[in-house]
């Protein structure tokens, strides 16, 4: 009998190549263009799919093993946090509103990302990128579910989360993240991966997860901290994929450069506009703060992405022009947003409050150039209105940007007391924008953005009424009917934090938790 021969151990790269791209073949019974019909119409030219460098090289067996370990840890903490009524150890009940924003605004995007990566994981004709994309699709399913599961126990005790699925589909402010992601998903496969895999994952998710989740830990939310960090451990892989895609596409053909540059310009801007919600969450909604939005921007955009764009310069890629405006808005963004959500609180599904004296001192120390001069007076005036028993509230329907769908609350760059507006005619119809960058995005693809379902307009068209509603009936109240259609429980889900059911319950429960009587 032969002696078993000790085989040469294959290196990681070689072995992974056999395990992935070795699986594909050149079809002959069907044309390859019929099998992969969607990876060429965008004008991106790929000459050699084999030039693809795999980012992290996880085979399915290692994937199952490591991911199972992450899941075991995560659910042990989620369970322990729920079983011990961990929500009562939070720094302050206001914190719970960040959790509401998260499940309403973010968890459904993770699901969209899962479907989007499943789609492009079918469409690229290179095996390497397909494997990387379906693995990311699976991770994104994980993120959506771990967020829903970790927040499930909050939902049992507090308002504003129970209808996250319906709210995400219809509630006006949530059309901002929803339309953002649908814009990417309805783009071609290459645009999607540049938008999400690169601009969103690489450039922006650090700004969502790292400071915010660190903030969750700081405010005593072990559940959110755990899903956040656990999700980020996958994001590290995703960012590497995003970066590889860009490098691969740019190296394949010089004609790809201007197309990619256009997408980078568009998606950096689209992403930063959506991050308005995160800026506000960081500066105003975390009772105990880790770092300001401006500081996070410096670390994760200026430093991190600066290095990246320097690296991409050799392909002729430049920093998106919108970054100039983003820098000018950096010290204004969170204040403008919170001032808006404060007054538009009737149509939100989370509670708002005015910053306290301490909060405002912190804000003015972090934003010495802007806060005291432009924003403190507004908050002080509103505090006076509240003290007088006449809290200020805006009830009219906001005018929205046709592209980002954010109410037109942004000011002219460099002119913080002048609201910005841009305007175009297209096919006998006029459209309005919050900025020249949103206008430019519209002008590039008007046929796409004329389809947008602008939330305020949907109400006026009668699309925000429940089936069977008769708007001509006596005493018909369109605002109340719209809230009913949105499944916002007026007086419970929306309004001011102080004195809300959530606030009162938290204080009562915490009181019980801290005493023996």
């Amino acid at each position: 009998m032969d002696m078993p021969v000790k085989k040469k151990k294959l290196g990681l790269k070689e072995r992974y190549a056999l395990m992935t791209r070795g699986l594909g073949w050149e079809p002959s019974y069907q044309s390859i263009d019929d099998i992969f019909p969607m990876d060429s119409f965008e004008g991106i030219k790929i000459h050699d799919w084999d030039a693809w460098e795999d980012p992290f090289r996880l085979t399915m067996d290692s994937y199952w093993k490591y991911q199972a370990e992450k899941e075991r840890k995560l659910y042990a903490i989620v369970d322990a946090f729920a079983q011990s009524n961990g929500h009562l150890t939070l720094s302050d009940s206001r914190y719970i509103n960040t959790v509401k924003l998260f499940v309403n605004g973010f968890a459904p995007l993770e699901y969209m990302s899962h479907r989007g990566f499943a789609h492009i994981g079918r469409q690229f004709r290179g095996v390497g990128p397909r494997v990387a994309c379906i693995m990311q699709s699976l991770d994104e399913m994980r993120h959506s579910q771990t967020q829903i599961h970790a927040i499930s126990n909050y939902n049992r005790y507090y308002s504003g989360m129970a209808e996250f699925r319906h709210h995400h589909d219809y509630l006006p402010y949530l059309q901002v993240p929803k339309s953002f992601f649908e814009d990417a998903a309805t783009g071609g496969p290459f645009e999607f991966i540049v938008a999400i895999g690169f601009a969103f994952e690489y450039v922006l998710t650090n700004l969502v997860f790292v400071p915010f989740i660190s903030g969750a830990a700081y405010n005593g939310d072990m559940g959110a901290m755990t899903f956040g960090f656990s999700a980020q451990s996958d994001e590290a892989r995703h960012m590497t994929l995003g970066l590889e895609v860009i490098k691969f596409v740019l190296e394949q053909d010089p004609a790809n450069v201007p197309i990619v540059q256009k997408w980078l310009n568009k998606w950096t801007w689209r992403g930063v506009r959506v991050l308005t919600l995160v800026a506000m969450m960081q500066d105003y909604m975390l009772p105990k703060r880790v770092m300001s939005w401006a500081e996070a921007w410096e670390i994760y955009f200026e430093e991190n992405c600066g290095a990246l764009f320097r690296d991409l310069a050799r392909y002729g890629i430049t920093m998106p022009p919108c970054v100039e405006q983003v820098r000018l808005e950096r010290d204004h963004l969170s204040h403008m947003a919170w001032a808006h959500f404060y007054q538009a609180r009737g149509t939100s599904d989370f509670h708002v409050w005015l910053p306290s004296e301490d909060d405002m001192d912190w804000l003015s120390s972090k934003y010495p150039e802007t806060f005291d001069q432009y924003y403190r007076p507004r908050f002080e005036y509103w505090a006076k209105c509240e003290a007088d028993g006449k809290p200020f509230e805006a009830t009219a329907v906001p005018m929205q940007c046709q592209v980002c769908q954010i109410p037109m609350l942004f000011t002219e760059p460099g002119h913080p007391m002048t609201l910005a507006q841009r305007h175009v005619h297209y096919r006998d119809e006029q459209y309005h924008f919050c900025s020249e960058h949103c206008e430019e995005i519209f002008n590039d693809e008007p046929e796409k953005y004329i389809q947008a379902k602008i939330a305020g307009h949907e109400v006026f068209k009668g699309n925000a009424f429940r089936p069977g509603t008769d708007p001509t009936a006596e005493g018909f109240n369109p605002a109340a009917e719209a809230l009913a259609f949105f499944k916002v429980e007026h007086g419970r889900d929306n309004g001011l934090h102080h004195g809300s059911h959530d606030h009162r319950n938290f204080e009562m429960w915490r009181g019980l938790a801290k005493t023996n009587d």
Partner: protein
Amino acid sequence: MSEAGSTVFLALQANDDTRHVIDAIMADNPTAILDPQPAMVRITNRGALVVRRESIEERMGRDYDLQELHINMISLSGRVDETDDELTLSWNH
């Protein structure tokens, strides 16, 4: 504008598993800076950051597969080059 001047970073959860990993990285990258934040650490370095399997194994006293890093990794920047023995983040190419 030199690429060697750009910073790379690796962020890890701060827990018992990563203690030795962090020690190994700091030992292997003498110019690296350790930035502890709530529940995490961020290690930054100019140019490149190397994670070596052997250095981690020495400290852990057991075999270590570099892919175990995935369990506790939070974020990174730079290009990744991964072999059985080393994981390198850098802006060099």
